[in-house]
């Protein structure tokens, strides 16, 4: 099996190089994400979502007969290299970019797109600073930490009845962004956190931080971090005898959470960007996606793949159809976009800062899988 995996990866790497030979009149769609380095699983999920969407669009005749060609740039989940990766796409040139994972990387590469005047739809970074009134060409479909942190704070107090809430957060943008908004939301409802500690993304041992949290004996523990730190925190918290229920936001929305902490993650409530059971169309897409990509070296990552797919299929494609590849017209079309996306309750629309406003989805970890959260 191992050799198969190796061949699979070489195959994947090789195809990145060939990247569907782009013919002259093809529409070039850029995808930038970390496909090596710490964010590998997120980046490959994004690439799979793009490949799936583009294959379906081209199969259905493409955009007014023009095929879409994917140009993929791996930024190795490193801010410095993400600048160079975006520069490469600008230089290609591509007509628009859909992708981007990791707030540090997107904060670094979005300036390149802004200066080059290139429409850039961000699918995998939640730091609020990405969409402000200053960015003109950068849009974001995944909702920010602020929306998720507010909703989980609200749910924790009102639906889960938590009184003594502790917070442990990664020191990176994602962790700090979520913490600040979560605390503000709690303050609005009149709740003060009983303990608050931070950690470095690469940390493996959390006894120091968790010992302080245990002192405060919380009934709820908010974890604003990503894989593999979050599941490690859950395991070690249970080892230390912390009984508090875990809550969190999008960083936990990754199947690896259950593989790395099978027992400890049970009962965790979190906001997520995508869940198969929200509506039938989401379930159908998820089945198609898993079937298509379960053979590859990476286990399928539906969460960010879903956003990349929806951003291309339901936002980028219609706009390319209506306003062609003129950058300014394309930008205006995206900014005025309004519509329905599977797994997103109600209607979504872009506000003036380029942020897609939408309802988030609450899920709960039950016997090793994400389930729609039904109350207590």
């Amino acid at each position, binding site marked *: 099996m191992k050799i198969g995996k190796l061949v699979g990866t070489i195959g994947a*790497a090789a195809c990145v190089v060939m990247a569907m030979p782009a013919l002259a009149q093809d529409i070039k769609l850029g995808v930038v994400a970390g496909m090596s380095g710490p964010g590998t699983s997120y980046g490959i999920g994004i690439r799979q979502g793009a490949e799936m969407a583009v294959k379906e669009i081209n199969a259905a005749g493409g955009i007014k007969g023009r095929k879409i060609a994917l140009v993929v740039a*791996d930024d190795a989940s490193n*801010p*410095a290299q993400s600048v160079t990766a975006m520069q490469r796409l600008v230089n290609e040139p591509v007509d628009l970019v859909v992708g981007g994972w990791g707030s540090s990387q997107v904060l670094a590469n979005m300036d390149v797109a802004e200066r080059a005047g290139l429409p850039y739809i961000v699918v995998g970074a939640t730091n609020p600073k990405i969409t402000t009134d200053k960015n003109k060409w950068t849009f974001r479909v995944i909702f920010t930490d602020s929306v998720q942190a507010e909703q989980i704070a609200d749910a924790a107090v009102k639906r889960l009845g938590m009184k003594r809430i502790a917070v442990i957060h990664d*020191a990176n943008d994602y962790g700090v962004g979520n913490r600040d908004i979560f605390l503000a939301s709690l303050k609005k409802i009149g709740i003060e956190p009983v303990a608050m500690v931070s950690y470095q993304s690469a940390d493996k041992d959390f006894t120091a931080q968790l010992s302080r949290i245990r002192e405060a004996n919380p009934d709820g523990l908010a974890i604003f971090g990503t894989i593999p730190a979050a599941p490690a925190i859950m395991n070690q918290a249970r080892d230390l005898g912390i009984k508090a229920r875990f809550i969190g936001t999008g960083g936990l929305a990754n199947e690896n959470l259950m593989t790395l902490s099978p027992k400890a993650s049970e009962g965790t409530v979190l906001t997520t960007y995508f869940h198969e059971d929200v509506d039938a169309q989401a379930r159908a897409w998820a089945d198609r996606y898993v079937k298509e990509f379960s053979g590859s070296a990476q286990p399928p990552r539906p969460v960010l793949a879903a956003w990349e797919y929806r951003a291309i299929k339901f936002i980028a494609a219609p706009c390319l159809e209506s306003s062609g590849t003129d950058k300014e017209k394309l930008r205006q079309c995206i900014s005025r976009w309004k519509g329905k996306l599977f797994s997103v309750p109600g209607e979504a629309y872009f506000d003036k800062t380029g942020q897609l406003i939408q309802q988030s989805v609450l899920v709960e970890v039950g016997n090793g899988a994400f389930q729609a959260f039904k109350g207590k």
Partner: protein
Amino acid sequence: MTAFRISQRGWIVVAALAALVALPGYAPQYLVHVANFILIYTLPVIGLGFLTGFTGRVSLAQGALFGVGAYTTALLTTKLGWAPLATLVPSVLMTVVLAVALGGAAVRLAGLYFVMATIGIQQIVWLVLMNWIELTNGPQGVRSIPAIGLGGYELETPQRFFFLALAAAGISYFLAKRVIGSRLGLYLRALSDDQLAASSVAVEVGRAKVTALALSAAWAGAGGFLYAHYVRYIHPDMFGLEASVLYLVMSMFGGYRSIAGMIVATAILESATEYLRPFGEFRMIAYGMILLLGMMYFPKGILTLVRRRASAPATEKS
């Protein structure tokens, strides 16, 4: 015969320079972008050359010092509103002061202890950049650093910035040659050959080493200054141990004491990092192998192999 040879070599150099200066004209923007990175990286690499090549001291803190230069100018411009060019001297000075404060005592120690100390310095600087949030915004990094303006002419695009980077690399090369040719250069080469013999011909070995450390920090700080105003967004992870390893490799690969060799090695290795990019992990494996096999078979640096000089290799005339 030699007259002919020099003029022939001279011609090659002139032609190469002309092609380089005109690069932004004909080359695609992405190539100019990579060229800018190469030119910027020659500064920390040549700076490190004073330590590795000329003083026989290996340092793994050049990445952190490069970061100190970048952060000094980034914070001065974004938080205090200074004009970019006004922050060049403070960036260089801050890097030198920090390097000498943290490493001054260690540089006098035996070679191996100095390497160990530089690893400590690298990690400490990185951790402080990452955790002193009030000063450096920590993991949020510093955004929208202003571009350098020369007489109302903003160097925003890679093409425009290219000339500043080329000039900086040129000045750095010229100054480095002067330093190596100076008395200090002589003392450094002497103490790296035989420290005891050097002190027994009145060379103040300790002071010379600290001066070499200060020079390597100054070059790193200047490089950091340029980097910050080119990338215009900096993050602590850009200045981690991997960066120090990168500069060390480039400076050692260039050839034992040849500054031109270091520049060529920087060009080769930086473009290798870019063009091997689509290969993900395999790029890093290839990089590791280059490092390992290079040291196993060309300990004196690949380019000394290229040089076919008969007896005396090109030594810097005193």
